[in-house]
């Protein structure tokens, strides 16, 4: 059973492109006294903005949405993903991918009140645990290789590249292999210092010299060290926001 150690009301965000699908969740959420404000978004893009602005504790997320789907939302948020995410979808085939992306639960549409309550209780438990021991941002990474142990300051890292179940840390001219997934590492690192620019690349914002438009219309991120990294189209706006070069203001 869930614990009620957490006293502050839980702030929830419901993301679904169908009004009635959102209605299912908001009606049930309102019945629970532990729930605080409930925000609704009808697209992935709206959800990104809302999350960055209000930092909700719990998000109910649809998978199939126009333009920016549920998985895109999580990937674009990186370290800013709310502490608890519950997927809500009619498709059962995304379950594995959802849990890999860090989902706490996976509600299949349509769902009954009891199943919803189980998901909500799990979220409450996790949030209570989270309130007791908020995750520490990692300042130092421990890298073991060939009988050596190296301590790396997170701020020293230039960029990180995914290599299957490893993360390859680029620090100056050296590279270190860490046995952790990129997603896992991204969650632990300071979200303000690092930014994802590609499905498999995270970059230290302090090391970016600039962005360059290539002949084929794609952008490259140029680091102070001269290294050029591909900027994937879907992460471009995200990076521009973070660097304060939002194209809308230009």
């Amino acid at each position, binding site marked *: 059973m869930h614990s009620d150690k957490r006293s502050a009301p839980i702030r929830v965000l419901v993301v679904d492109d*169908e009004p009635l699908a959102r209605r299912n969740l908001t009606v049930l959420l309102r019945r629970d006294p532990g729930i605080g404000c409930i925000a609704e978004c009808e697209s992935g893009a709206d959800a990104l903005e809302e999350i960055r602005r209000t930092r909700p504790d719990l998000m109910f997320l649809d998978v199939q949405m126009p333009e920016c789907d549920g998985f895109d939302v999580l990937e674009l948020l990186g370290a800013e993903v709310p502490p608890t995410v519950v997927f809500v979808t009619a498709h059962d085939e995304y379950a594995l991918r959802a849990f890999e992306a860090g989902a706490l639960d996976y509600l299949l*549409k349509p769902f009954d009140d009891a199943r919803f309550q189980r998901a909500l209780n799990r979220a409450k438990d996790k949030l209570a645990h989270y309130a007791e021991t908020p995750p520490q941002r990692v300042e130092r990474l421990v890298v073991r290789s060939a009988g050596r142990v190296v301590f790396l300051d997170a701020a020293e890292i230039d960029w990180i590249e995914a290599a299957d179940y490893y993360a390859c840390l680029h620090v100056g001219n050296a590279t270190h292999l860490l046995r952790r997934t990129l997603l896992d590492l991204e969650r632990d690192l300071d979200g303000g210092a690092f930014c994802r620019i590609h499905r498999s690349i995270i970059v230290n914002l302090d090391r970016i010299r600039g962005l360059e438009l290539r002949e084929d219309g794609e952008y490259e991120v140029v680091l102070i060290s001269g290294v050029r990294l591909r900027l994937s189209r879907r992460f471009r706006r995200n990076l521009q926001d973070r660097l304060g070069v939002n194209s809308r203001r230009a």
Partner: protein
Amino acid sequence: MDEIPVGARSIRWLKIAAIWFGVGLIDADMVFAMRAQGTHYDWVRLSVMLVLSWLPWALATPFVFGLGRRYPPFRVTTLPAICAHVGAVAAIGIIFAAWSAFLEIVLNPLGQPQSPGPFTDLWRSRLYFRLLISLIVYAFMMAIIYVTESRQRIARQQTEAARLNEQLSKAELSALRRQMEPHFMFNTLNAISGLIRDNRNDAAVSMIVGLSEFLRRAAVDSNRPQVALGEEVEYLQRYLDIQKVRFAERLQVSVDVPAELLPVQVPNLILQPLVENAIKHGIAKRAGGGAIRVAASRSDDRLSLRVYNDGPGLPADWATSRVGIGLSNLRSRLQILYGTGFELNLRNPDTGGVEVLVSLPLGEV
């Protein structure tokens, strides 16, 4: 017959030789009849002569069968065909008579003291009989060709019919499966549960009824090949009523079908799948939603059905993408119903969006 390998060709000649040798032997059995009557001739020479006399027929066999295939007997009765067959019978008969006369002179099987007369006289005297025999043999060969060709034709027709049947059932199956698109069902049921949780019971009931009507049509009549356009429009309306509740103001639809076209026969399940595609590719992918227009019109003896959505245009490689595959299912169904008498086009109109145009011969009203 164009490229017959040498081995097969010699086997064919062997077969021909064997058959005509057999015919010759049957012909030669008159020798035994004559012997039984007590006449005395050179039996060996006579038999050899009778067997050998069929040589022109053996040599002419491939030519006769070729001619039979070129001008199928008992079916095509054009002047050139008749001339070819009559000419062939006459030519073979004349050569047959000449060859028999020649053999008779050389072998002299009846053992007459002097040679059986000048070649031309003998040839002329044998001509009528040999022509008659030629006609019978030729007709017999044509009958063989006729029978084998007919059997081949029936076999071909059967395979063709089987192929068409298979295509038809595949198309039916895919139509049914598309109709039963499980996510459409789950999302609709989820929307209904949303209405109930929101205490909008009347709306929930009417959506349950709408969904049931939709399912009934799918379960009951998926095997009628053609239905009235009015039924298709009604069915489409059921589907749209459900989708409008789900997508709310994001989905704008107009259906424009003139009343006089409602009784026209059209392929079953043609409109709803096209609109479903338009929603999937044109509306569901855009946060702002969009508009769909369905229109029917007639010009002369053709019916045009148009389904337009104002969504993003087609990618350059649409033919090989999922859109193209969905349309190719419809295309194969239309092919079964109309052969080449239909048009199915997907295009990006100048005004933007995507339009599917189906043009069909106008059925009975």
